[in-house]
Structures are given as C-alpha cells and as structure tokens.
C-alpha cells in the first residue's frame, strides 16, 4: 500500500474542503478504501478521516421518513427497532451484507460509495485493462470469467456488477441522498457505466454524503430483501430482490408494489415494469411469475453469467409471493 498523509477533519466543511484537493479522499469505515489501497486500485495522497465527526450517526424514524446519518454503522441501522418494523427490507439488506465485523465498521454513506467487486478491477497488476480504473484501457472482463458480472445496465466499456445490498432496498423505496444542502434521488446517485464507467456516483469533489432519507410508506412497512447466493452467508448476491407491497382493503388487490434487483446489474436496479404489470391486479402466483420475467427485460449475458437472467425473475417472484402470504 502506497503511503499517504492522514488528517482528521474537524467539521463537515473542513472535510469537504480537504477532500476537494487533488489526490485527497474521504475515509470513513475504510472497508472498501483500505482494501482497494492494498490492491493498488486506490492510490490516495491524503486520507481525510471523517469517522470522528459528531452528529452524523443519528437514526431518526418517524411516520413520514427515516433519516439516517452518513456515519451510522450498517450494523446499528440493521438492528434498529424502528428500521426493522417500518423498513424491514432495509434491515434485512443490511444484516445479510458482509460480516458482523465489517458492519460494525462500514458506514451508511460509505456503503453507497462502495466499489464493484469485479476481480479484474481489483487486480491492476495482472489486468492492466480496465475502463473503470483507467478510462480507455479496455475491459478485461468481457471475454473473461464472467460468473459474477452484470446482465443489466452493461455497456461495451464495462460489465462490472454493483455489489451492494442496502442501495437495492433504498432504490425500491425512493430514498434520497443528502449531500449537505442538496439532495439526489438514490436512483440518480448511481450512474450507468455507458462510456464513462470510471464515474459511478453523482457526487463531485468537495461534496460529501451527510445522510440518506427514506420516505415512509405502507409498501416499505410490508417489505423484504431476498438474497440468493452461492453460500448461505458472507457472500455477494447471485441475485437479490427488495420487494414492498401494499394491498387494497380487500387484502388481495395490489395497490402499490416496489421491486428492485441486486446482484445482476451495474447499479441498483429498479424493476418498474414488474411493478406496473401487477399494480391493480389480484396477487396470484401465475401472474406474479409472468410479471417477474419483466425484471430482466433487455438483459444480455456474457456466457457464464447467463444463469442470472433465469435466476433474477425467480427471486423476484418468490419475494413478491412471500410478501403476499402475510396478507
């Protein structure tokens, strides 16, 4: 790991200013950044440690919304009683992510800034070509081993998968990222690779995530995060789904439905086509399975990741039906 200088920011403003300088990066839990520095992917000249800033780790839940401070730890949010009761999909996405140790370190803001786990991206010594690391250098994954790569939202420049869980739940429930005074919908915060896969987030130097806000809703209250993976725990998703549902008074007709996918796309993937196909309909297994196929509309595989195109709709359908059972 290349050495760097280290400073502790005294305030949010000081952190923003320090991190805006060339070569500087914000350091929170460090679970991505220190790892990538050891891989030779991140080469910061200065790390601006924000973990000691006060007032950024609150978790405020009301009827209207949940506002979670950027420095709240993943594990604390997962275990928070009001998050569990009003936003179960958020809690479930968090506790099924990483390990208990990492969840005690990783912050909510840092979680949104998590980088891809694409093995080619993480290995510059053996794979110099990576458009995400070095724009214009090519993509080592295309034509390589693609079992863990995306089938949705890819481009000719990059097929790296977005690996996170939390943001999948956030995008399903229209959460908003607070960058100090300005706010960005989570769906817009994550960028498609297109021709600029090096740019993953709608955040500029000098900006810093201060909180995320999740609007409260009936569908958020009746929600789940279903994560399917190669091993039962401590693994990234082969495919996952955040699903929330609200029924009409009859308890059968779907008034509101939220569906987002993880483990299959280059960003947290809202599946509005599935939602639109089922809203206003009576929840019925065959209709749910048929509509769930719309989750992978436009998907393209690169060989070994083909299974995701079959798996994702099944995960979506199972999650929707599970939420229906509790009607």
């Amino acid at each position: 790991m290349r050495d760097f200088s280290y400073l502790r920011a005294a305030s949010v403003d000081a952190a923003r200013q320090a991190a805006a300088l060339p070569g500087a990066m914000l350091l929170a839990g460090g679970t991505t950044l220190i790892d990538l520095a050891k891989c030779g992917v991140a080469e910061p000249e200065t790390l601006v440690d924000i973990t000691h800033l006060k007032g950024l780790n609150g978790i405020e839940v009301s009827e209207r919304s949940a506002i979670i401070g950027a420095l709240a730890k993943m594990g604390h949010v997962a275990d928070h009683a009001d998050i569990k009761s009003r936003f179960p999909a958020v809690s479930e996405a968090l506790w099924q992510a990483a390990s208990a140790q990492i969840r005690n370190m990783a912050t909510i803001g840092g979680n949104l800034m998590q980088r891809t786990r694409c093995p080619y991206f993480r290995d510059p010594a053996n794979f110099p070509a990576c458009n995400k690391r070095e724009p214009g250098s090519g993509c080592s994954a295309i034509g390589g081993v693609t079992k863990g790569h995306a089938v949705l939202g890819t481009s000719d420049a990059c097929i790296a998968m977005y690996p996170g869980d939390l943001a999948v739940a956030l995008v399903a429930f229209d959460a908003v990222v607070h960058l100090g005074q300005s706010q960005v919908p989570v769906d817009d915060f994550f960028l498609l690779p297109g021709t600029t896969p090096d740019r993953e987030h709608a955040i500029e130097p000098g900006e810093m995530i201060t909180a995320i806000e999740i609007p409260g809703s009936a569908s958020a209250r009746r929600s789940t995060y279903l994560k399917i993976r190669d091993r039962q725990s401590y693994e990234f998703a082969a495919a996952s789904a955040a699903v929330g549902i609200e029924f009409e008074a009859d308890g059968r007709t779907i008034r509101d439905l939220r569906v987002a996918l993880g483990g299959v796309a280059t960003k947290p993937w809202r599946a509005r086509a599935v939602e639109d196909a089922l809203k206003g309909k009576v929840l019925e297994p065959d209709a749910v399975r048929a509509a769930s196929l719309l989750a992978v509309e436009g998907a393209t595989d690169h060989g070994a990741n083909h299974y995701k195109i079959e798996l994702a709709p099944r995960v979506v359908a199972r999650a929707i039906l599970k939420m229906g059972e509790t009607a």
Partner: protein
Amino acid sequence: MTKIPVYLDINGHHHELQLEPRVTLLDALRDRLGLTGTKKGCDHGQCGACTVHVDGERVLACLTLAAQAQGRTVTTIEGLAREGEMHPVQAAFLEQDAFQCGYCTPGQIMSAVACIREGHAGSDEEIREYMAGNLCRCGAYPHIVAAVRQAAQEVAS
C-alpha cells in the same frame, strides 16, 4: 512519508508510537507492540482472523488504520483474560475442542465474545449467521458453534 505520532489504548495500556499513516492497526499490534495473538490471515477483510474490539465492538484490524484507533479503546485476545482467569468464551473453546490448527481461534473468540454481547447467539442458526465473518480452514465449525452456544448459555445463567 513522514511518521506521525499515534496514541493507542490497548488492553488498558497506553502506547505512543511513531507510525507511517498507512500502518494498519493489525500491523501496529503485531509488529510494533508484539501482540501477535491477533492474526494476519487474508489482510483484506475476508477471513476475520484479525478481529479485535474497538470501543467494545468487533472490527477487523487489517482494514483499520492505527491512526483511526487513536482515542478509541482497543481490546485484543491478550486482553480478554481477567487476573489469570480465562474468559468464559476461551474456556468454552477449550472445553468444546473448537479448533484444530488454532490460527483462526483468536479471531473466532473475539468475534464470539461480541456476538454473545450483541445478543446474536440465540440459536445455532443465529450463531452461524453472526459468526460467518470468521473463516476456519480446518473446518472446526460444529465445535465452534457448540463453544459459542455453551458460552452464551453460561453468560445468560
């Protein structure tokens, strides 16, 4: 890079070190302070061998900069025993034969102590989920689960 002073509170003892900012808590513990009970496995946050407690919570020393731990309270496996008495989790690991080669054991024990304290050791299934961040290459998992279960019951009684 210029070294910086780093003050660390480890197992109730204060240490003042001069470190390059890039030095992890793990390397500071092992190479500078001789506290080699905390193990370096993968050094990438994937195996849990380096698990220590910072302000009472289990974290990975390999992904924590030593400088970040300044002002925090750090506990390592060496700080677990009290007045020569093994911690109940240490005793349970011995009793249940919860290791083979022993390399992952300090991390397993530090993780188990926190797992029980967090209230995540209520069933074997929950123990397996919340101990998933600690890999054991020898595959001693059934005995590890038994040790955590035993220690959790002892703590509760």
